[in-house]
Every structure is written in C-alpha cells, then in structure tokens.
C-alpha cells in the first residue's frame, strides 16, 4: 500500500495555478525528491500535504486514510513531519528546548502541568542532538545559530515528532558544499536505518543525484517528468526547464 497518495490535486491563488492536477504516489521506505525551479510550486505542494493550505480540489491519502484538508496538528499526529525551507524554529529557546518541545508533543506529555520539563525526555533529546550534530550547541539560543545549524535544528525538530513520513523543504538551502553533503548523507542514513520515508524538495539538481531513488520534476504547478535521476537527466522537457534556468 502506498504510504502517500495524491490524486488530482489543484490549488490556485487568484489567477495563478500553483498546483495543477498533480498525481503522486510514494511507497513506504522511499527516498524521493521533487525538483523544480523557484516558483514551481514545491512549497505549495508541501503546504497542501501538511494541511497548511486548503485544497481547491483533489485527494490526499496517508496509509489509506483520507487526510485532505485536515488541520496541521492532526496530520502531524498521524506520523507526518515537516522541515521548513526557511528555518521555522523557536528562536528564543535553546536548541535543546527546541527539540525537547517536539519530543514532548509526540509523547503526548504537553498537558502535563506539574512535572518540571527539564526532567523529561532527556535521553531522546540528547540522541537527536547527536544525530543532527548539534550536541555542542545544545544550550545556545536557537536564534543565534548559524544558518546551517538552524537547518539541522529544523530537521531535528521534525525528527522529534517520530514521523513515518518526513517532508524536507529544501533541506540544504543556505549550506556550504560540505554541509550539503553531510546533510544529504544524514538524510540517506535516516531513510535506510530508521526506515523513514522521506520526500524532499530541491532546486539544485546536482544535490539530488546520488541520494534520491526517484525524482519528480515540477514546473509551474504541473509534473512534467518523473523517473530515476538518470531518466530525468535525459528527459528533454526537464532539460528545457532547467537549461532555461541555468542559461
């Protein structure tokens, strides 16, 4: 059974069709990417899938359950997590507190009024700090972290929700070449070791090769090509779209 199934998804803003009859499917355990130039509709797609926007028409199912137009918090509780393109963290809390918040929410302990929070979820929070390489920044105020570290924190928060399906919105944006490969290696490990189904978006083609098993190319809201990275690279329509970009 497909873990994610999107059928005939449409979304328009005013006159602009941001998502145009998109059909998409993901199997459990996949590591796939959606690529496309800026403005192609990648973030809109994620916003629709995570309940942030309401769909105009179409259907979204997770593990067979229809989750179209569900509110974000309900979708999250099903086991879907998201890391945002622009770091969407808690700037005034420490990195440790950021991650712990997501873990406590997942553990359904946030209605606990009387236990001091600093006693809870210590192990799990430390683990995530280590996995994302943030251990030495644990007590730094999140707003003061570097862009790359903020992205890692973003990922850590998403992981804190113990998701089965993870959406990563441009996970390497703002990172140096080395950081990019570190992050994508981490993503690959998460997929293989933790059995996490991961869908990420990227607008830099060179990043996705070697990591994604399947690529989908989005252009002006529509899917114009799909297949393995090799197939996509050879695809003429995809080339036109990107050649236009790079020229």
């Amino acid at each position: 059974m497909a873990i994610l199934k999107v059928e005939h998804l449409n979304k328009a803003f005013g006159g602009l069709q941001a998502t145009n009859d998109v059909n998409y499917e993901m199997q459990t355990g996949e590591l796939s990417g959606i690529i496309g130039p800026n403005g192609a509709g990648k973030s809109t797609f994620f916003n629709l899938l995570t309940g942030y926007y309401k769909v105009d028409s179409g259907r979204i199912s997770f593990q067979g359950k229809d989750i179209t137009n569900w509110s974000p918090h309900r979708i999250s509780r099903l086991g879907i997590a998201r890391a945002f393109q622009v770091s969407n963290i808690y700037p005034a809390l420490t990195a440790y507190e950021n991650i712990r918040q997501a873990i406590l929410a997942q553990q359904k302990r946030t209605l606990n009024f009387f236990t001091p929070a600093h006693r809870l979820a210590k192990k799990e929070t430390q683990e995530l700090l280590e996995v994302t390489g943030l251990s030495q920044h644990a007590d730094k105020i999140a707003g003061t972290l570097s862009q790359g570290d903020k992205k890692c924190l973003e990922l850590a928060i998403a992981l804190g929700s113990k998701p089965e399906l993870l959406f990563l919105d441009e996970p390497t944006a703002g990172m140096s070449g080395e950081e990019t490969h570190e992050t994508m290696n981490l993503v690959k490990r998460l997929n293989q070791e933790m059995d996490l189904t991961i869908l990420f978006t990227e607008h830099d083609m060179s990043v996705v090769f070697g990591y994604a098993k399947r690529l989908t190319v989005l252009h002006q809201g529509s899917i114009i090509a799909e297949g393995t990275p090799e197939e996509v690279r050879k695809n003429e329509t995809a080339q036109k779209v990107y050649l236009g970009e790079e020229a």
Partner: protein
Amino acid sequence: MIRYGWLGLIFIATLILPLVIGEYWIHVAVEILILGLFAVSFNMIFGYMGQLSFGHAAYFGAGAYATGLLMVKTSVPLPICLAVSMITAGGLALVIGYFCVRLTGIYFAILTMAFGQMLYYIIFQWYSFTGGDDGLQGIVPPDWIIQVTAYYYFTLFIVTGALIVMWVISESPFGYTMRAIRDNADRTRFIGINVRKYMLINFVVAGMFAGLAGGLLGPFNRSIAPDLCNWHQSGVPVFMTVIGGPLGFLGPVIGSVIYTFLFAFVTGFTEYWPLTIGLVIIFVVLYMPGGVLGLVKTKFKTIGAKESMDAEA
C-alpha cells in the same frame, strides 16, 4: 541555587514585615500581594503565551463579585468562596476565551477589551443582583482574619501558594508549550499541538488565578464596585508587568511593588496620578523595554531570551 537563596530571604522578609511597619503599610502590602497575583496571572497570557489581553479585569471582577456576593448574602466560609471565585472566573474565561483564542495580535486585544467592557456594563446595569453602580458593601472577613495583620498573613499564604502553583505550571511541559506557541505558533501546530485548545486552557487557568485575586480583594476593602471589571482595571496588570518585566516569572510582582508603592505615595499629595503613571509607562516603554528585570537580566533566568535574539538580529 543562588536564586533560591534570594527568594528565601525575600520570603522571610515578607514574614516579618508586619512587625516592622505601620498598619497603613500593611494595608499597602496586602494590596501589593493581591494585585501581584492578578498581574502574574495576566503574564501567563502575555509573557508566556505572547498575547496582550486588555480585558483581564473581567475575571478579577468576576472573582471579586463571586466572593463578595456569597459573603454578603450567605454564610459560606471564605475559603470556599475563594474556590467558587476561581471556578466562576474560570468558567467565564472558558466562554470568553473560546472566542478570543481564534484571534491574535491586535484583534485579540480588542476582543478581550470588548468582552471586559461588556461584563462591566452588565454588572453595572444589574442593580438588583449586583448593586449596580453602588457596588457591594459590607463584605466582612471572618473574625480570625478581620484584623489587617492576620489578613496579611492569610493573603500571603494564599498568594504564595498560588504563585508556586503557577511557577510549577510555567516550568512544566505545558508551560514550555505556551512559550512555543508564543515564539512560533505555526511550528507548534506542525509538531502535533492543537494551538487553539492549548491557548484556551492557558486562558482559563490565567482567569482562575485572576478570580482568586479578585476574591481576596473584596473582604480586604470591605466593598467592591463594577469598576473592577473595566478597561482601566485591565490596564493595571499590564502596567505592572511592563514595569517589572514580562520575561521573568516574578517580573509582575516586582511591578506590583513599584506600582502600588508609587500609587500610595503619589496619591498622598496630588490628584494627578494618571499623569504620573502615564509618564512612567512612556518612560519604561521608550527606555526600559524589558522592565526592571530587563536591567538585571544577567542575574535572573528569563523565560525566553528575546534580548539575545534582538542582539543577533
């Protein structure tokens, strides 16, 4: 640990206070405690959750009237009256909050203010039940605390207990979730939290403690009036919190000390209290944005290091 040392000293000081000051100042001290509790409950919505409520006096007034009416018309013992006050205020906060938490920012501020004024006018008009404009007179505390020093210790005991409960809540997962909602409500939705529901719960808890404060006021002043609900009364905890500093748990209490002292002092020799407090607020807003706590922030743990954020920006 050093912090607990300071708190311990302050607590001991409050215990021996009545022995060293005159009766007038014991009255002032009781007022500081009651309004301090009111202000800390306000800060649960403001400092912790990040929303400005301009109608918090509704719950303060509701609590005052609940206890006042029970004490005047029945012989229910005071501790029960106070519990009823908390429940009444909490229930009112549940109804009002249900609508208010759908909004944020300026709309939240205006809607809370509108509801506060509504309650004020209702109490004002409902002469037969509440005494309307005349207010409610003759609220007399039970004999064992009728003497002001005894009432002081009674209030100190209750307020300290309430503050400890609110402190524990603020350091609990729920308290941290409030900070999360304040800092990034969207993100908080995406980790699985129904933000609206949590905001409502916080609003109700804050309302309950405001109601408790109101309940303590009636027997202290021997009378209450509808004014306790209007937007001027709602402004009092805002002033106190801003002066003391919203980013520390005890900030509003510090603000209460300063405000109440200032009030007692200034009204002693001039009628232009509004002018005075207005100028103080303008000064604090322009030159001391973190309040008193903002000045000494290195010594106190803050509930969100906004100053560091601003430094980085």
